[in-house]
């Protein structure tokens, strides 16, 4: 699905600035994440791509600029407002799976629903089971994160992130710690979610992961220096790869 033509921003940021000490990590970036888009942010290490994700999701307060989620301003929002946003509208997948270590995979998914979704308790459990099945986690659902493979844990993390049917799914290098087979499994999940209309913002430096997006942004020194639309190539993987490779080479990748 390609919703970029509708151009309804889920999150929009203007002139976002973030500094760590004297270093300006984000340098007046303006960005809009559109509803239904699978936006990928690429860049070299230290370019500010993860910081951008944390600022847009309110996990870090930006030093300057304005960020809106719908009509709600994230910059300057209280801890309580940000908590509600995270519970109701945002889903997160991290590089390290960050599942609660003493909960089983199934319980991790349920927990997200109990905290965030507006579903009744029975529906939460039903949906958690469905998601576990969709993520092919039936066998591992009753195990602890330490007892499953990295791929299974990350799939559970994705299931947990979408449990509350978030307006946007933030993913920070979700395949960074996975082997090739597990990476493919997780990326397939993202593709499926996108196909069902899930808005995704993925930060990665993995070309394979970036190929799953329909809109690629390249960040350098805290600024968006280039943007590539892959939506016009549909599911033609070769064409998408060729275009992305050429684009990245042009950026000195």
């Amino acid at each position, binding site marked *: 699905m390609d919703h970029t033509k509708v151009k309804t921003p889920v999150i929009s940021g203007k002139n976002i600035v973030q500094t760590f000490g004297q270093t300006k990590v984000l340098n007046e970036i303006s960005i809009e994440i559109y509803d239904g888009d699978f936006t990928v942010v690429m860049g070299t290490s230290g370019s500010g791509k993860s910081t951008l994700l*944390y600022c847009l999701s309110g*996990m*870090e307060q930006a030093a300057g600029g304005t960020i809106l989620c719908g009509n709600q301003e994230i910059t300057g929002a209280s*801890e*309580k407002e940000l*908590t*509600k*946003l*995270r*519970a*109701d509208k945002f889903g*997160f997948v*991290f590089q*390290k*799976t*960050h*599942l*609660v*270590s*003493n*909960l*089983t995979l199934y*319980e991790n998914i*349920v*927990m*997200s629903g*109990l*905290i*965030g979704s507006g579903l009744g*308790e029975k529906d*939460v459990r039903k949906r958690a089971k469905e998601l576990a099945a969709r993520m092919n986690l039936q066998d591992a659902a009753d195990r*602890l*994160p*330490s*007892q499953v493979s990295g791929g299974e844990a990350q799939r559970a993390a994705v299931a*947990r992130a979408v449990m*509350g049917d978030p307006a946007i799914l933030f993913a920070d290098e979700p395949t960074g710690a996975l082997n090739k087979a597990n990476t493919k499994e997780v990326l397939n999940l993202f593709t499926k979610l996108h196909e069902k209309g899930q808005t995704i913002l993925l930060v990665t430096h993995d070309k394979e992961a970036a190929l799953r997006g329909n809109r690629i942004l390249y960040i350098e020194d805290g600024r968006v220096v280039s943007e590539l639309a892959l939506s016009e190539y549909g599911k033609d993987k070769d064409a998408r790869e060729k275009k992305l490779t050429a684009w990245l080479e042009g950026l000195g990748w």
Partner: protein
Amino acid sequence: MLLGAAWKRQKFSVCAIFLMIAIAALSLFTAITLYTSGTASVEDKMDRLGFGDFTVWVSAQPERLLAEIAQTADVESAIQQEIIYAGYEVNGNHSDNEGQLIADDGTIPYHFIDRSGESVNLSEIPVGNIYVSPAMESMFDVQIGDTIQFNLSRTNGRKAFTVAGYFEDAFMGSSMIDMKSFLVNSEDYEEMLQIMADAAAIDVLGRSGAMLHISKNPSSGLTDTEFYEALQEHTELARYMDFTYRKDSILSYMLLLQNIVAGFLMIFSMVLFVICLIMIRHSLTLVIQQEKGDMAILRTMGLTGNILRSIYVTLYGGSGFLGVVLGAVFCRMVAENIAKGMVTSTGMLVDIRTPAGLLFGVFVICMLVLMAAVFTQTGKILHIAPMQTLRETKSAARVQSPFSRRYLLVHIAVREVLADRNKYISLCLIAMILTVFLSVIGHMGAWLGPNGEGLMNSFSVAEHDLGVQPLNQTVPMDEIERVINWYSPVVEQYELAMQSVTVNGQEYTANVLDDTRWFHMLSGSVCDDDSILITDTVAREMNLEIGDTVRVSANGRMGEYEVSGIYQCANGMGTNIGMSIGGYARIDDITGYIWCKHYILENGSVRDYVYNYLEEHYRGIDVHTNSWSGLSGIVFVMHMLIVLLYVVTAVIILITVALVAGKLLQSEKSNMAIYKSLGLHTGKLRISFALRFLIVVLGGALLGFVAAGILADPLIGVVFKRFGIGEFAAGFSMLGNIVPLVAIPLLFTLSAWFYSARLSWVSIVELISEDGE
């Protein structure tokens, strides 16, 4: 470099442990210093004032007795010190007991002191002035400038003195001893003797007498008891003496309060030491668990396990060493201040001397125990296998516990506790120990009561609200009883006489009751005409058991009695016996004015009003309540001590929580960050975190509650036996049982909640990025 890095990471834990050990060591060393100094100091001062091994108070024939005593074998010396016995009034209070006036003629080296016990130079007491024990302040609120009036005869026989200062009275000065000494100028003393000599015999109220200080020959093979028996056998001591005290009895009286304080401090330091050991174990376990990875890397770089271990041994052992040293350095200062604070109870300033050898021995034992704890825990470092550790992934225990939205915070807390239960064992143990500790304190507080009722009942022969003893036949007892009944109906009444007797030659007070069911029985059966009751103290002192036969004599007549039971009466540190009126009649006259009528009122709270009324309106009676003049001072100190220990316990809890919570938050950062990222507000996370403490501490407190229910009374009983209180039973009370059970979990939970505020200051990104899986 490694030590510096470890210090940077562990400085809070190390400092907290240092602080707790320092407090524990300070309490322990202070208790030891106070106890040993007190005994040595009072003994020295008693020797300086010439107390001897016994002092006998007589009011007739002192010279004759002295000559007889001096000729007795095994007597090294016998010294006579003249005194005048007289009742007195001060600040509107009529003393229940006579005072003993002593002329300061320079023969006995009395020391004059100020209110804080420090020496004051005085060459001679001016005429009209009087010097008193500082304990008079706590007993009668006596201040310098007050007037004390002695009643020497009924006709113009009052002699008034102005309180000019204090003197160090090493054997009558404590507020525990009702009879007080007063130092006056020789001229005043002679004038008083003259007043008594000039008065008609029927009008004389005061009487001259003496203290006979008797010392046993150091080479004598007799025990004190045997020596005393020999004296009674070869002299007319039993006939003429009013009462007698042994040196060790006086030491117990003089140092009662100080020894109670030292005992409290000792128990507190033991509790704190155990908590310190648990905390060391807890901290090192978590630190080693958290830093296992780094240690594994360092081992791959060639560092041995022993080098790594030495870092933690240096940090934790060093903090323990410094803490113990700090305690040892400051104990003298603290002991001196405590001694100064108790001058108005002990009646003198105890000279604090550092028992260097003993303290060094305790120091070594403390260090050995601490180092053993540190070595045992750090032993785990030696077993870290580098590659295996590096390959290990973070794991958690698989536990089953329910989850529902309604009780989500509780369920999260329960899961965290169950999954990481090893981390919470220390917390549970500490909560249990503190609950037992506070229960013990609470049991004592409950037993003591708001006005010292427990102490009063233990020290009195039998319960009563009011006692009235007519001293002559003109006293209108019917009218007095109507007055008492007007204030409150009398529920029960009985008669008591307290007479001096000897049991197998040893001097004791016989508590004679006309109704023996009022005795506080501990074991055996109530006495009859052929039997007596003894206290635990007497049983111990004389090696007596129920069923033994003893010889009891009074005023030269003697009878044989069987010991029928053990009863409770801590009066005279338990040096007393119980007799029935029929039993006492076998050896002495019971028709004199020796009987004190005891009344139990329907409304006991009016007793002070009745007391005051009778004191003001009737002459020739001795009125008293179930209290003594020094009681309020002791009760006040005990109550303050209880409050202080509650405060210190709260501080320990704060430190414990800071230590435990710090480590827990560190190890659970990741889970906290995840919950935050899922949309759980920091406030809720803090509640859940505090709930974990509540769950664990409540468990520990319940265990402590049960343990205290079983142990508190017997434990206190063991300590109280030393003070003549044979049986301690506080029973169930709010202060002793419920308050600790509620206070400990509440304090821990609130502290944990406050401490978890740091969760608000750390961003999710920081939490997530710091954690490695």
